[in-house]
C-alpha cells in the first residue's frame, strides 16, 4: 500500500511538473501547455483519502518526491545576503535609517514574537548583556517559546476568521488557534499546515448528528473550511487570498476588472471544493449554467475523476507542492514581512497576475529559499529579524521608493494593546473585552491603512476600571514608594514604554512632580500621559 501511494503521488506530481510555463512566461495562463501534457495513465486509481491520516500520508509522499526541494537543500542565504540584495535594489546611495539601540530592539522583538512588551527585568538583562551575539540569541530564544507559537496562531486565526461568513455555532476558532499553536510550537512546515487546512473535509459525526451544530469543528484544522461554510466559491476565493496572496474574488461574477483573471478560472478553482458536479451560474439567465471541471490557476488539472476527498487533496497538492506556484511561498514571506517591517513587497492579499511587486528579485529569492528550507516558518523570522532591514529605526514612509529604507512605525494590534495594558493593571476581564472590541482590526489590512478611532482614545482616557487600576494598582504603589525623582521617572518609563526616559522627558517629569503639590496626583498624571501616548500604542 505505501508503495502504491508513493507511485500515485508521483503520478500527480508529474502533472504538476509538466507545467513549466510559469517560469518562462509568468503572467500568461497556461491552458495550452496542459493540453499538450501526456495523458496520465487511465488505470490509476487513487486511494479514497477519507481520513486525515490517509490525506497526510499521501501529501507527504508527494512532498518527499518534490525534486526541487532536494535540489536546493544546501543553498545558503543569510540575513547579510538579504540586506545586500535589498540595498542593491532600493539603491545604495539612499539614506537609510540607523539601526535601533538595544532597548528598542528588545521591545520590538518581544512585540513581534511573543505579542507583549518585555518586562523591566528582561530589558535590563538584555541591555546589560555584553556578548555580540545577543540579538540573534534573543530571537532564537523567543522563537522556541509557547507564546511565540500562540501569537502567530492567533494571527492566522484572525486572518482566517476576519472575513468568515459561517454561523458562529458551526465553527470553533479556539480549536483552530490551539491546533495552529501546536504546529508552530513543534515547527511544522508551512506547507503541511496549509495542506491540512485546505484538504480538510469535515464530516458530521453520525452519533452527534442530532445536534445540528456539530460539524467536527473541534478538530482545529477543519476550521478554515468551516469558516467559509464548506462552500466552493468562498473556499476558492479564500484559498487564493490567504495562501497565495491573490485577489480573485471579483472573478466569481465577472472577468476581473483590474486583473487578468477570467470567470472560468475562478469557477474551475471552486470546482475542487465541490462534492459532485460543479456549475458556473449564468448571471444573465439563472436557468442556464455550465458544468466546470476542477482546474488549478496555472492550468493543472487532475487526470481522472476524483471524489470530494480526493479533490481536496488534489487542490492542496497543486497549491503547495507545485514548483510553478511561486505565489504560495511568496505570500507567506510577504505577509510576515508586512507584519514585521510594516510594508510588504505587494499588498498582502490582493495581488493579481498583472500587478506590480516591488523588488521582485528579492522577495522571489527569499520565497525560493523558504521552500528549500523545508518551509520552516522560523527560518523566515530568523532571516528577517537578524537583518538590517528589520533592525532599522522608524520613519514615516510616504513614497514607495522609500520603502525598506526604514521601518514603518506600526499600530499595535488588539492583543498587543491588551498585553501592554493588562501588565499595568493586572488581569481584568472588562478591560480585556473592551480592548478587543475597540482595537480589533483586520490583520490583512496594510499597516499604513490602519487607523485609530475616537473610541480608542476615550477608552484610554476615561475608562473607569482602567483609571482605577492605574490610580491604585501595584505599579502606582511601587512608584509612590520611590523617593528619588530620577529613579521614579525611569521606572515609570520602563514599565509603560519599555525604555528609559530621554533627558527632556526626565526634566519634564521632574518638573511636574515639583509643580503639583499632591504627589500621588502628579504620579497619576504621568501614568495617564504615558498610557495615552502615541508611543504606548506603537511598535517603534
Amino acid at each position, binding site marked *: 500500500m505505501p508503495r502504491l501511494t508513493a507511485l500515485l503521488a508521483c503520478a500527480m506530481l508529474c502533472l504538476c511538473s509538466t507545467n513549466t510555463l510559469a517560469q518562462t512566461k509568468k503572467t500568461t495562463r497556461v491552458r495550452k501547455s496542459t493540453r499538450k501534457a501526456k495523458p496520465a495513465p487511465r488505470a490509476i486509481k487513487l486511494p479514497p483519502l477519507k481520513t486525515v491520516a490517509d490525506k497526510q500520508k499521501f501529501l507527504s509522499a508527494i512532498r518527499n518526491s518534490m525534486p526541487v526541494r532536494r535540489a536546493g537543500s544546501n543553498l545558503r542565504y543569510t540575513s547579510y545576503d538579504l540586506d545586500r540584495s535589498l540595498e542593491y535594489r532600493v539603491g545604495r546611495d539612499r539614506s537609510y535609517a540607523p539601526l535601533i539601540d538595544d532597548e528598542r530592539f528588545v521591545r520590538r522583538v518581544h512585540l513581534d514574537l511573543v505579542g507583549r512588551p518585555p518586562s523591566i527585568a528582561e530589558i535590563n538583562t538584555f541591555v546589560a548583556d555584553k556578548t555580540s551575539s545577543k540579538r540573534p540569541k534573543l530571537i532564537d530564544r523567543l522563537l522556541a517559546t509557547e507564546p511565540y507559537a500562540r501569537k502567530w496562531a492567533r494571527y492566522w486565526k484572525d486572518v482566517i476568521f476576519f472575513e468568515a461568513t459561517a454561523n458562529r455555532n458551526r465553527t470553533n476558532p479556539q480549536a483552530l488557534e490551539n491546533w495552529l499553536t501546536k504546529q508552530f510550537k513543534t515547527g511544522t512546515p508551512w506547507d503541511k499546515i496549509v495542506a491540512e487546512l485546505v484538504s480538510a473535509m469535515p464530516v458530521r459525526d453520525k452519533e452527534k448528528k442530532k445536534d445540528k451544530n456539530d460539524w467536527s469543528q473541534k478538530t482545529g484544522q477543519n476550521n478554515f473550511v468551516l469558516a467559509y461554510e464548506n462552500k466552493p466559491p468562498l473556499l476558492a476565493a479564500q484559498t487564493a487570498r490567504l495562501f497565495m496572496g491573490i485577489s480573485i474574488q471579483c472573478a466569481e461574477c465577472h472577468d476581473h476588472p483590474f486583473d487578468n483573471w477570467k470567470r472560468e478560472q475562478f469557477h474551475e478553482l471552486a470546482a475542487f471544493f465541490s462534492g459532485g458536479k460543479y456549475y458556473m451560474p449564468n448571471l444573465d439567465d439563472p436557468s442556464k449554467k455550465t458544468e466546470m471541471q476542477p482546474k488549478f490557476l496555472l492550468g493543472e488539472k487532475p487526470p481522472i475523476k476524483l471524489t470530494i476527498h480526493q479533490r481536496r487533496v488534489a487542490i492542496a497538492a497543486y497549491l503547495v507542492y507545485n514548483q510553478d506556484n511561486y505565489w504560495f511561498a511568496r505570500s507567506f514571506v510577504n505577509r510576515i514581512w508586512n507584519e514585521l517591517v510594516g510594508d510588504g513587497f505587494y499588498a498582502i492579499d490582493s495581488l493579481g497576475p498583472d500587478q506590480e511587486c516591488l523588488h521582485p528579485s528579492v522577495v522571489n529569492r527569499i520565497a525560493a529559499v523558504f521552500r528549500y528550507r523545508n518551509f520552516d516558518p522560523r527560518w523566515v523570522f530568523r532571516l528577517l529579524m537578524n537583518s538590517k532591514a528589520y533592525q532599522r529605526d522608524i520613519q514615516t514612509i510616504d513614497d514607495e521608493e522609500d520603502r525598506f529604507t526604514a521601518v514603518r512605525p506600526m499600530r499595535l494590534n488588539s492583543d498587543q494593546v491588551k498585553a501592554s495594558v493588562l501588565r499595568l493593571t493586572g488581569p481584568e476581564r472588562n478591560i480585556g473585552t473592551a480592548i478587543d472590541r475597540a482595537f480589533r482590526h483586520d490583520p490583512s489590512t496594510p499597516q499604513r491603512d490602519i487607523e485609530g478611532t475616537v473610541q480608542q482614545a*476615550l477608552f484610554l482616557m476615561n475608562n473607569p476600571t482602567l483609571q482605577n487600576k492605574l490610580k491604585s494598582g501595584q505599579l502606582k504603589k511601587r512608584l509612590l514608594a520611590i523617593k528619588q525623582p530620577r529613579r521614579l521617572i525611569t521606572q515609570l518609563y520602563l514599565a509603560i514604554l519599555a525604555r528609559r526616559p530621554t533627558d527632556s522627558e526626565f526634566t519634564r517629569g521632574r518638573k511636574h512632580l515639583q509643580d503639583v503639590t499632591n504627589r500621588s496626583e502628579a504620579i497619576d498624571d504621568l501614568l495617564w500621559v504615558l498610557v495615552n501616548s502615541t508611543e504606548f500604542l506603537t511598535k517603534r
Partner: protein
Amino acid sequence: MPHTHQSISTNGPTNGIGHLPVSRRQALGLSVASLLAPLGLCAEQLKQQQRSCILVWLAGAPSQMETWDPKPDTKNGGPTQAIKTTLPGVSIAEHWPKLAKSLGDVAIIRSIVGNEAAHARGTYHLHTGRRMGGPEKHPNFGSVVAGELGDPNSDLPNFVSIGKTLSSGFLGVNVAPFIVNRAGSLPANVATPLPSPQVSRRLALLAAQDAELSDAGAAALVQEHRVLYERARRLMTSPKLKSFKLDSEPEARQLAYGKNRFGQGLLVARRLIESGVPFVEVSKGGWDMHNRLFTRIKTAAAEVDRAVAALLRDLKQRGLLERTLVIVAGEFGRTPKVNTKTPAPGRDHWAKSFGMLMAGAGIRGGSVLGKTSNNGQEVVDRAVSVEDVFQTICRAMKIDADKELFTPGGRPLKIVDGGQAIGEILS
C-alpha cells in the same frame, strides 16, 4: 512643516482641529467647503442649507414582496396581502399600516436591479455605491457625507452609526463612523471624573510626550493621534452630548417610536440630526429570512413600521424633514419564488429586482418609481441601478456626485461612478 509642539486644546473645546496642520490624507479627504468653514466663511449659511440623512438599514435584506411591492393573489406572492395607502392606486404589503398613511412624504422605488446577492458584497455596494473588490477600500457613503457636509469643528462626530457599519475606507479617521452600541445612553467612556483643569494639564503633558515620538520618526501617527484626542476631548465636554440621551424626550414620544432598541435608535438619530450631525445610520438586523419568513416578518415589520412612521412625523413637525433625507433600505431583495425550507418557507437572496424608500429632503413625496412583472422576477418598467440610486441621494443631499476624492495612493475617484439621478422622484 515644523513639528508642532503646541498642546492639545488646553483652551477648551473652541480650539478646533482647523488650527492644527492638516496632513496630506486629511486635506485630500476634506472638501473645499469644509476647509473654509473653520475660517468662519459662510458657516452660518452652510448650516441653514445643510442637508442631513438618516439611513435606516435593514440588515439581511428585506423581501420586496413583503414590503413595498406586494404581489397578492399570485403564486409567487405567498400569503402576504396588500393594503391601500394614502396614494390612490398604490398598495404596499399589509405589514406596514402606519407607513401606508405617511406615503405622501415618501418616494417608493420598486425597480432596483442590483448586482450583488451575497450579504457582505451587497452591504458594501449599497453603502459605498461601489462593487467590492480591487485595491481600494471605498468609503461608507456616510463618511462621504460627513466629509462633504460635516463641520470639521463640530463637537459631535459627523457620522454616527447606531449599530455596526462599514468603515470610512480611504477617507480616514476624520470621517469614520462613530459607532454607538446602545441607543439612549451616553457613548462609553465619555465621562471623566477629573476636573477640567487636570484634564487640560494632562493633555498638555501628552502633547509634549507625543512630540518626542513625532521627532523620532512617527510624525504621521502622532498627528493622527492628536486629531483623535482633540475630537475625544471636544466630545467629552460638548453640551451636545445630551443628544445621545433620551431622558428629556416625553414618554409619549418614546412610545410612539417604540420602546425597543431600534425605535429608540431612530429617536436618538433625530436628536443627533437636530444637533447638526449630517449622517446617522440606524440598523436593524434579522431580515435574512430564508425560512419562517411569513411569521418573522410580522414582528420585524411592526417595529420598523412604527418607528419610521413616527420619525417622519416627528421630523415634519419640527420642520426638519425638508432638510433631512430618510432612506430605508437593505442590501438586496429576496427571491420572488417562495422556497421550500423547513420548518416554514422563506425567500432566498435576490438582487435582480428590489426596492427601497426615500423621504424628505429633495424627494418628491408620493411618487412611486418602476414596476416589476406579475411574478416579480423582472423589472418591466424604469429599471434603475444602485449607482442611479446613489446619484439620486447626492442630488437630494446637494452633493456633487462627480467630485473626485483622492485615495492615499493619489488615485482620483468620483463620489459616484456612473448612473444617473432619478429625476422622477426628486423634487
